[in-house]
């Protein structure tokens, strides 16, 4: 359970942060809904990158 929660929290964090950034950009620049779409997808990618790094499949940023 610990490992599952770790990996899922990484993915959710990436998606969540991406969505929040996109929503914030939409609010500030009134580009709705494109900021949310673009940053949600980028957040999803970042979440997957986090999961892959945290699972130790790919070498991390610091060559861990």
């Amino acid at each position, binding site marked *: *359970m*610990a490992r599952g*929660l*770790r990996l899922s*929290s*990484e993915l*959710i*964090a*990436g998606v*969540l*942060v*991406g969505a929040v*950034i996109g929503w914030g950009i939409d609010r500030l620049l009134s580009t709705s809904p494109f900021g949310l779409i673009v*940053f949600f997808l*980028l*957040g999803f*990618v*970042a*979440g997957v*990158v*986090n999961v892959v790094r945290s699972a130790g499949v790919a070498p*991390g*940023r*610091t*060559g*861990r």
Partner: protein
Amino acid sequence: MIDPIEQFAIKKIFTIGHIGNQEIAFTNSSAYMFGTVALISLLMIGGVAGKQLVPGRIQSMAELSYEFVANMIRSNAGREGMKFFPFVFSIFMLLAVSNLIGIIPYTFTIASHIIVTAALALLVFLTVLIYGFYKNGLKFFKLFVPSGIPIVILPLVVAIEVISFLSRPVSHSVRLFANMLAGHITLKVFASFVTMLGAFGLVGWFGAILPLALVIALTALELLVAFLQAYVFAILTCIYINDAIHPGH
């Protein structure tokens, strides 16, 4: 049915004062934090009081915890990381001791509230950010630019790296919080099965053996998770500090 969420309730013990209209109360959570810090202080002060060449029980525990955290920092953040030893040691000991206290029935687990773990994760995040810029200046941005990436897809990769960096405090805090919350709820739910089945008389007593055995097994698992999550939190802190010390490696 016993309410499995009730164990996380914040209860006011007394009021310290007011900031604006907001009441600042001393709660059971604060009491457990103070208790944890007192226990750690007792362990550390008691550990160094004897100063024997052959350590006694308390001194050996204090030395073991020092060596454990020191090795963790040296292997994850290098020798330079040792200047963060007090920081990492405080976080690790606070979480480990408070999580272990939380295993005892009728106690409160401070890490089961996301505000506590989020505050700790933000502390780590801001430490990394501020120290990274203080030490490396603008070279800190190299963290977001991996080497050997074609210029065409570089903006995309940088955006992903920035989001990945910003998502760190979120996953850092949610991981610890979710583990403690889920573990304690599971324990409570299975424990309530024992009492509910016990109400059915003799057949229920035999039926209650299964959830009782599960509760015992889960308590052992929770003991492991309590320590492991404190360790994971501390080791991620070391890895993030390593990024602040050596960006772009």
